[in-house]
């Protein structure tokens, strides 16, 4: 690879708007409670648009909060230590250790002030390692009620999924009644339906935006995607997020048409499966010196967004929203809403089984025009890492080069930065990619 094209590049026009929207979300987490909004704790994967049925709310998703702390080692390390001082183990979920440690220290990351007080927790058991238990620790410490939905209908279950859909829908219906009891508020079905329609729309939009990054050169790099993702992750239920994501999509199309690159020296495209090591995001900027651009990560394609994998055709396309899918009913009331959410969750790629997921990894890799995968053996999250070696082997059997490194996505003490960079440089050298000169 001796020749190097240098593409045009410029910042996103909607970047400033994105920053403002993101800031608003964080400010709401700080001031929302004082403005009379309900303060609710949950998981990033919780379909929290349903909460709009109770009125205005602020939703603190545990994982992004844990990730935000993880990206700031001087704040993160005392949180980790506070958590461990309570007798909990160092090998548990990295996000959780940052989150709960921050609570024990009574320090809220976004202000440095006291940790928020929640009205209730509404969790989902999408992570078998125990998100409900995480939230139960918080609820018992602060003394607020909690409920959770077991909606992990995925994996290799045999039999008729209808039992699971009924079960999940039933839990949503029950939890709405429970929320009315613990808040003393009446649930407004219409408001919840509207917010969930936004939620579905915005997930599909984020998926579509992510798919546009298959263009060469990539209009967005992964680090910019992480910066904009809080809009897709924390404001999924709002119309303003739809407006922003539509604008972003249009701008990406424009950049594609005009060959405007996120990384002007792009010559080697890498993809990931997992979140990044949050304390070590400089890895992406550093590798730009080699002409490497990271174009996406599978986890946020299907966690903050939704796409449709056509497994038989080896294709991935943007997802449609449930009410526009053939055979899906219009949502008219609470029961329709809960059943739609349950069915939507069951069919969402977030729930894909291991073997399906392997196919999806290959499909998205080719869609993104990838040259190699970077896999993180994540000591901070068991479910993400359990079968990573199996994934590695499968990708390699498909002729995809794979670089791997071990570390922790949320604990800066548990990653060897120099060692990782050495390993990646050696991998790139093996791929014929040297550090760029003169750019």
């Amino acid at each position, binding site marked *: 690879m001796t020749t190097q094209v240098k593409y045009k590049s410029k910042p996103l026009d909607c970047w400033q708007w994105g920053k403002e929207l993101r800031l608003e979300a964080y400010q709401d987490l700080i001031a929302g409670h004082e403005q009379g909004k309900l303060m609710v704790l949950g998981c990033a994967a919780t379909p929290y648009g349903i909460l709009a049925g109770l009125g205005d709310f602020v939703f603190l998703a545990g994982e992004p909060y844990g990730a935000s702390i993880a990206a700031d080692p001087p704040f993160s390390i005392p949180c980790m230590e506070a958590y461990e001082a*309570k*007798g*909990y*183990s160092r*090998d*548990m*979920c990295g996000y959780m250790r940052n989150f709960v440690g921050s609570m024990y220290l009574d320090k809220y990351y976004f202000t440095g002030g006291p940790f928020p007080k929640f009205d209730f927790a509404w*969790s989902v*058991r999408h*992570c*078998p*390692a*125990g*998100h*409900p*238990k*995480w939230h*139960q*620790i918080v609820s*018992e410490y602060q003394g607020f009620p*909690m409920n*959770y*939905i*077991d909606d*992990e*209908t995925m*994996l*290799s*279950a*045999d*039999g*008729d999924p*209808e*039992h*699971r859909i*009924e*079960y999940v829908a*039933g*839990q949503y219906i*029950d939890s709405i009644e429970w929320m009315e009891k613990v808040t003393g508020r009446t649930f407004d079905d219409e408001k919840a339906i509207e917010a969930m329609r936004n939620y579905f729309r915005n997930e599909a939009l984020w998926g579509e935006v992510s798919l546009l990054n298959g263009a060469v050169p990539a209009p967005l790099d992964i680090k910019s995607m992480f910066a904009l993702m809080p809009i897709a992750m924390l404001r999924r239920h709002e119309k303003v997020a739809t407006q922003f994501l539509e604008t972003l999509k249009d701008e990406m199309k424009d950049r594609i048409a005009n060959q405007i690159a996120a990384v002007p020296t792009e010559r080697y495209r890498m993809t990931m499966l997992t979140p990044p090591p949050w304390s070590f995001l400089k890895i992406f900027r550093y590798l730009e010196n080699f002409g490497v651009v990271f174009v996406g990560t599978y986890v946020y394609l299907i966690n903050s967004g939704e796409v449709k994998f056509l497994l038989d055709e080896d294709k991935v396309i943007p997802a449609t929203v449930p009410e526009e899918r053939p055979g899906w009913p219009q949502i008219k009331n609470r029961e329709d809403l809960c059943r739609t959410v349950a069915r939507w969750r069951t069919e969402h790629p977030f729930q894909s089984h*291991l*073997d399906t997921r392997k196919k999806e990894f290959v499909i998205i890799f080719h869609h993104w025009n990838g040259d190699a995968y970077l896999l993180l*053996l994540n*000591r901070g999250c*068991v*479910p993400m*890492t*359990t*079968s*990573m*070696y*199996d994934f590695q*082997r499968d990708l390699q059997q498909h002729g995809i080069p794979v670089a791997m490194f071990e570390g922790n996505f949320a604990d800066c003490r548990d990653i060897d930065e120099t060692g990782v960079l050495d390993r990646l440089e050696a991998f790139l050298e093996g791929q014929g990619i040297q550090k760029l000169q003169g750019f």
Partner: protein
Amino acid sequence: MSAIEKFQEVSANRHQYAKDWKERTGGKIIGWLCTYAPVEIMYAAGMLPVRILGTHEVQDVTDRYLFPTVCPFSRDALAQGLKGRYDYLDGLTMARTCSHVQGTFDNWRNYVPTPFVYYIWFPCHIRSSRAKPCLTGEFVDFKQALEKFTGKSISQDDLDKSIELYNTNRRLMKQIYEFRKSDEPPITGGEAMEMVVASQLMDVVEHNKLLEQLLEELPNRRLERDIGLRLMMVGSEMDDIVFVRMMEELGCTVVIDEHCTGSRYFWDEVIPEEDRLAAIAGRYVERWPCPAIGGNLEDRPNRVLEHALDWNVQGVLLYQQKFCDPHEFDIPVLQKMFREHDIPTLVLEFDVTIPFGQFRTRIEAFLEMAEIEVL
């Protein structure tokens, strides 16, 4: 041969027992990976349900499949499949509980040839009234799949017989556990563990006969040993009988346990209902919960404490399979609870193999300290 010797023999020669059973009955054998798998339905299908356990040996076959932060038990269990030690299995099943053993199951399905493989989706929100109907539906599907595989329909009568046999099994083991309340328990913790492990490997009819024999033997049985500190073992999967024997030689007796090769496995019975599968589903939803079943931080400790007090426990060994988040969540809660009841605790973390010498030293120190506190 005494009943306990027979349990020891089956436990030590589990594969031979299973192969012999197959030869003499002509039946099929189904392996299971987690105690939420409904043995009643498997047995009603004419199959021998056999729990897949590890061997606590150093192995190098699972690292290609499972990341080393997957729990040791799950890796050890997969190793047995990859090494072909369960090559006599006709089927494999598990019920959804935790992602570690899920990894074992998924890799077994893909890399260990097994004719029938079935994953039962278990509703983990056990406090929800929606869980039992859901699980009943899952069991209907599982029963049909077994019928298709074995070519034999499972009648109400088959289910009734199986439910009764397993309920009897549970009742008999509980009666034996009652003997352990005595000031001079006639059975050690290691022996009790072998009894429960054997229950997960043997034909329930044969195991029940041995339990009845043991119940006749126990009133006249005297252990030629000092009882020492009355200990409870609380934790995740545990079938390391060599470790338990070593511990009991240091001046203690395990008088009660709470883990899935102990009381947590067998404590709760199926309460009969017109719909037999609903009755079985009810048992699994309401049984003594595993910490991996979401959001039950208080259900489990309350039951653990009740047993600790009933069995007059003087110290508790809290242990976990390394990297088991659900148990790691519970340990500080359990420590606090026991501290409030002046019951000392020791925490140990288990890997596929354990540092015997280090553990021995720690246990000795714990027993010395606990005896000072107790006396």
